[in-house]
């Protein structure tokens, strides 16, 4: 334990210290190579201009290098892998893609992903918005907000473990320790094996992500709601709008941009959903999603680099347009109108 803490501290010091040393040294070197003091005026101006031209590259350089190695290279490598066979040696053209669209499991995963896309972002945004509005009106609103926000701090795997207990099923005659079955039993129903009920189990998994992400939606939307000028709401009150009309016709349109950003951010997250499926069902009982299927083919039973890579490319193609739109929208929100 102590050794681990020490090594963590050591790593942080090396990491942060390394950055400081790099930036300081690079900056100093630039000053030495193109001095702006102790030379003639014209030379100093020239050197200052050169410094101004080079310095941004020095500072941004390491980040660009790391991005290239860890982001751009994998994308290119995945694209290449996806047109090769299971060993990654022999070129097979689009065979992996045509396989995917004929594969029952892949189509099931696509279907499930679409289901997730239809439910989770909408549910998170809607619940987040409702909670944000309601908690603004009650004195214990901040406590409620903290409670709703808390799950965001839990990892997907951790959350899944918690919810596994919620959905837990014990055989007939045994005491049900899962709270959902306990409630069902209390009201006289029959306990169910929730996570292995095809089709509906998708929704039980979605609940977990909704539970986690509603807090995110709530926080962002809550601050957007606070940004609405009070005067517009007062003006609407005087214009004769009811509380409901003010909400739909005055408040929602003013935070529409933020709603869109929240919605798309969660959409991107949902497209990549993996941990929850892996931990809860591992894709069994027709609950698989694309990311988990990719993982299966790439690293586990499948052992087919080509097919795994092809699925990864498909996920990326689905995410990119939403991502671009999301970034544009976020920039517009941040940059004002």
């Amino acid at each position: 334990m102590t050794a681990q803490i020490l090594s963590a501290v050591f790593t942080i010091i090396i990491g942060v210290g390394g950055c400081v040393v790099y930036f300081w040294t690079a900056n100093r070197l630039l000053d030495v190579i193109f001095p702006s003091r102790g030379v003639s005026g014209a030379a100093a101006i020239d050197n200052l201009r050169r410094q101004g031209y080079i310095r941004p590259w020095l500072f941004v350089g390491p980040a660009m290098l790391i991005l290239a190695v860890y982001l751009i290279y994998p994308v290119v490598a995945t694209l290449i892998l996806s047109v090769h066979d299971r060993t990654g040696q022999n070129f097979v053209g689009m065979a992996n893609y045509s396989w995917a669209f004929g594969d029952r499991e892949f189509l099931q995963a696509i279907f499930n992903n679409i289901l997730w896309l239809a439910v989770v972002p909408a549910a998170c945004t809607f619940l987040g918005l409702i909670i944000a509005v309601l908690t603004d009106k009650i004195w214990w609103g901040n406590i409620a907000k903290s409670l709703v926000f808390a799950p965001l701090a839990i990892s997907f795997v951790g959350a899944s473990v918690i919810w596994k207990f919620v959905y837990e099923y014990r055989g007939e005659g045994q005491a049900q320790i899962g709270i959902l079955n306990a409630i069902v039993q209390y009201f006289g129903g029959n306990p169910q094996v929730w996570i292995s009920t095809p089709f509906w189990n998708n929704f039980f998994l979605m609940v977990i992500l909704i539970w986690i992400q509603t807090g995110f939606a709530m926080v962002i939307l809550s601050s957007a709601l606070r940004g609405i000028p009070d005067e517009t709401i007062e003006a609407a009150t005087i214009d004769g709008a009811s509380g409901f009309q003010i909400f739909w016709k005055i408040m929602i349109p003013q935070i529409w941009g933020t709603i869109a950003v929240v919605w798309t951010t969660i959409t991107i997250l949902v497209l990549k959903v993996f941990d929850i499926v892996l931990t809860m069902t591992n894709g069994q009982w027709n609950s698989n999603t694309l990311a988990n299927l990719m993982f299966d083919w790439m690293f586990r039973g499948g052992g087919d680099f080509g097919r795994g890579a092809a699925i990864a490319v498909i996920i990326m193609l689905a995410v990119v347009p939403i991502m671009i739109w999301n970034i544009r929208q976020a920039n517009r929100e941040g940059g004002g109108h």
Partner: protein
Amino acid sequence: MASVDFVNVKKSFGSHPVIKGVDVEIADGEFVILVGPSGCGKSTLLRMLAGLENISAGEIRIGDKVVNRLAPKERDIAMVFQNYALYPHMTVAENMAFSLKLKGASKAEIETRVKPAAEILGLTPLLDRYPRQLSGGQRQRVAMGRAIVRDPQVFLFDEPLSNLDAKLRVAMRAEIKELHQRLKTTTVYVTHDQIEAMTMADKIVVMHDGIVEQIGAPLELYDQPANLFVAGFIGSPAMNMIKGRLDPENASRFIALDGTVLPVGKPVEAAKGKDLIYGLRPESMRLDGSGIPITVVVIEPTGSETQMMAKLAGVDVACVFHERVAARPGDIINVAIDTRSTHLFDAESGRRL
């Protein structure tokens, strides 16, 4: 259109009273301005009339109806806010039509109400624009248009011009006044700017610290300020105040602390022996070789008039001359005081004598 009455209206936020019993009567069609320094309660009073703040005690009537418990939309009022409060996601036309739409008016009816209002305010070419595409003055006009379209009993304005630059403010001032003359709707207007109050109002209500200091027509307040607060608040540059007492022998002579004798227009025998404040408007002095000597401190010629800071009876006084004055700082010039516009106040109570 309707009259508006405030009857002993009070308002507290928690235990902190902000309106301490206000009585104002506003006649049908009148343009009334509530004016006072910030924190005097004028905006709160307006918001109480609008129904945006509740009333702690007293009664507010619009027409014959007590509106204390009515929701804003039932009061038949329209309000123009300081920051315009336009709906940013609606075009100019939609902003103006919003209240009508809520009432379920037909498209044709909305058109017949919005078009003339836009015409009056010169907004017709801007009807399809969004608020962010408009200048400050145009936004202000849209806010007024939104109010006009409703054809309310009372217009409320809450410091509508304070976000505009000086030049535009003067132009909008005239525009609002002209609009009132055209529509003749009862108007309650809040501002901290006494010039706005003087130039626009039929009647001014001067407020200070949650109470009404004086109610009257602009020139009435200027000529007969009821107390030191109104005297100092109305008029720019502000009235000069000089401490002293009346001559015990002759009530028409005011003797300042340093012994300078100043003429009193309307002698008040009863004020003899009391500590007094002598009020002198900057423009009630004129150059006169045989007058009272004053020492020039700063001189500011503006062309049409000459403003001056000078020492009179040991205190700094502002003077405005409607002629050109060839003096330099340090010079001593002589002025005569127009005794028709001198004021005497009780130093203790601040009341006019």
